[in-house]
């Protein structure tokens, strides 16, 4: 985002410099490690100043991410990272705001906030660690779980159609929409980098395996599943982007890569304009306002 596109002056930081003192508590083989690696790398390549970065999350294994990233951070409530981050971003548009969370956190309990982050074009990056399961609570279906999945509260198999995260975000009007697989940290890093340098609401969905509880969406399965976005795709055409996603779905594929990118005024731009229009400034004389209440 604006604050970060031009690398900061200080001696450049290495990816490892963005590691915090807290070691990840994830299970061996968890896909979230791949996402985290991608985040470190993207931050390093952009030279983001950690003190200017705010990493906000909800609740879930994925939502533990901020503990592992050198930054200011909030570990909020299940599903609420988006609106909390909106407040932070509007309060301090100069900061880089990064939300990291899970499919349950973002699309189940937090699903009501998503459309508004996107249509308001809040200037932040949202990295969704989509393992198609509730990891932290030990394995229940999430909105992205496949019907096949027998899980904790669905012993006889699932009954719901899974949702399609990138199609949702295209519909919601996110101005940057990408998708990757945690098994490909390079692509993850590229897309996260793109998201962080994008002005507006940037969404990256990352397929991430949960070896402990999701026994069907394995690494091999994901490898088979993904399909690169065609070279010739016009990333500025949302209709075409939806078309690609719909076609992929028909052939049981998931498109990876950058699907859509557009420029639109961000919510903080709009707020700044509004203040400009009324010639607002912090020491505007309150008497002028109070006088309006004279009889």
């Amino acid at each position, binding site marked *: 985002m604006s604050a970060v596109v031009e690398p900061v002056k200080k001696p450049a930081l290495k990816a490892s410099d963005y590691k915090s003192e*807290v070691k990840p508590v994830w299970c061996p083989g968890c896909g979230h490690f791949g996402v985290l690696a991608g985040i470190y790398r993207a931050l390093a390549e952009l030279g983001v100043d*950690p*003190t*200017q970065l*705010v990493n*906000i999350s909800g609740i879930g294994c994925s939502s533990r991410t*901020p*503990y592992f990233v*050198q*930054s*200011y*951070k*909030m*570990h*909020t*409530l299940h599903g*609420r990272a*988006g*609106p*909390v*981050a*909106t*407040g*932070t*971003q*509007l*309060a*301090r548009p*100069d*900061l880089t705001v990064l939300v990291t969370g899970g499919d349950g956190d973002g699309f189940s309990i937090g699903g*009501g*906030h998503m*459309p*508004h982050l996107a249509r308001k074009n809040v200037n932040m990056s949202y990295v969704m660690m989509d393992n198609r399961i509730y990891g932290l609570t030990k394995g229940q279906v999430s909105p992205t779980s496949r019907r096949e999945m027998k899980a904790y509260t669905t012993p006889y198999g699932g009954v719901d159609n899974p949702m399609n995260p990138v199609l949702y975000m295209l519909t919601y009007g996110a101005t940057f929409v990408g998708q990757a697989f945690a098994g490909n940290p390079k692509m993850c890093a590229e897309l996260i980098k793109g998201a962080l340098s994008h002005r507006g609401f940037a969404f990256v969905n990352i397929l991430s395996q949960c070896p402990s509880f999701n026994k069907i969406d394995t690494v091999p399965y994901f490898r088979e599943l993904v399909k690169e976005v065609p070279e010739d795709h016009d990333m500025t055409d949302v209709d075409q982007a939806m078309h690609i996603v719909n076609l992929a779905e028909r052939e049981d594929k998931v498109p990876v890569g950058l699907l859509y990118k557009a420029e639109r005024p961000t*919510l903080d731009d709009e*707020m700044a304009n*509004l*203040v400009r*229009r*009324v*010639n*607002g*400034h*912090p020491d*505007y*004389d*309150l*008497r*002028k*306002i*109070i006088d309006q*209440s*004279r*009889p």
Partner: protein
Amino acid sequence: MSKHDLIVRVAGEGGEGIISSGDFIAAACARAGLEVYTFKTFPAEIKGGYAMYQIRVSGDQIFNQGDTFDVFCAFNGEAYELNKHLLRPGTAFVYDGPGGDFEPEIPEGVHAYPIPMTKTAKELGSIRAKNMVALGALSQLFDIPAETLREVLTNKFKRKGDDVVKINLDAFDKGMELAAAQTKSDDWRVASPKAERDDVIIISGNDAVGLGALLGGLDFFSAYPITPATEVAKYVSKHLPKRGGTLIQAEDEIASIAQVLGASYAGKRSMTATSGPGLALMSEMLGMAHMSETPALVVDVQRGGPSTGLPTKHEQSDLFLAIHGSHGDAPRIVLAVENVKDCIDMTVDALNLSEQYQSPVILLSDGSLAFSTQTVPYPNPDNYTVVQRKRWDGEGEYHRYARTEDNISPMADPGTPGAMHIATGLEHGESGTPNYSPENHEGMHAKRFDKIQPVAETYKPVEVDGEGEADVGIIAWGSTIGVVREAIQRLRDAGHKVKGFYPKLLWPMPVEQYEAFAATCGKVLVPEVNYQGQLSHFIRAETSIRPIPYTICGGLPFTPAMIVAKVEEIL
């Protein structure tokens, strides 16, 4: 009640200009240096329906909307039907007639003044000027300063062009003329004007909260519309941008309180305003505000509950939720306003307390204050101090939740070098990293509770109304205080020994002050507009006092007469 005290009720169909004529009278009287206290009820339905506006005017200070009216002006038959039982010997009754849609029969002793409002307005070619005819008549009959009214009208209408001004003034004059033609048989009149004042404003409770927020240095406001709180956001949305601040309408109340916490973490003074249903939805997030020690202000303009309840009616029944409304042990600082002046001053206090104690603060207003306009001394911005949160001085290693003398840990805005930290809803050690050890949980609990305890002693001392011993002491909160003030005055005039105790800080409770007050009273009465006697509950739980609860919940405030009667009953 001062003898210069006059209460005028205007009623009719919503849309007939009831509200505006009330506002005109209020403004004119305020300009004339008088005290004004108004009270409205809106149609429950979406459009049309019965609307009522009551103006109390006095040369002296006014504390409530009064018992009933002295002058009643009926625009239509419905208004007459709904109020005729209140017409008593001595009441002045102005009504639309002849030519109105009803023929009242006038009770013994009532002073009737038929004014052909509709007919006259039609003759003048604008039915919309009906309320101006009424206004003129009222001005003539009860000495509502005519010149001032003309000014007010002129200012109000000039935007709409000269002919609009003219037709309204004509209607006004015609009204005066029609009234002048009648013989005044009562002696109701507005107190004689004092020197015109420029040290006063007239403002509604909701606008006053908005104004208080500005005076309190508000940076960020997020809310979701809800009756009767929406006007707070309306006022703020108009003026906050002038101060460079940000207002956003969120997708729901959970999002608005979440945005408030996010902005507060980023170092901004932040708040939201809602009513009961919204406060209920904020329960979980307010627990997070407490646990993460994030400053946040929630204004709850209470309405009739439970559930959707009576959205347009008055009640003070959210105290349980305000104090106990989170899972686990998660206290909040809870304040309640008495009147419109408090809406200004205590919103400033509430913002300051949230910043100073890094705590969620809930400020309770109510449905009758929300729309009540009152004259308030001009609030001089220089008289308000904006208390900043304690910020890290950059010395040594930074720990967000450091255990300090006063249990308040310095905060650090994002961007501060060397102070990167996490704000979290998990139990945590001083650095913010999760720590579930028994010692830590008990210690951090103590920190968070001990932190806000001093507020009970340091917030302005509870006002005690009266001295020495009393047979009955009345403890009241919220807008009920204003009613009790007048009741106590009358009881004293009647020679009774009564005292009042008016807490504005409801949690943490200043227990010693309660005890000290009760020690001087034979009996303690606690009138509240809710079903369970919610403050009585907390008094019983936290003090040794065994109060007599007096609860009503009919959607309307108490009247002084009700309190007087109750006290005389228990004396």
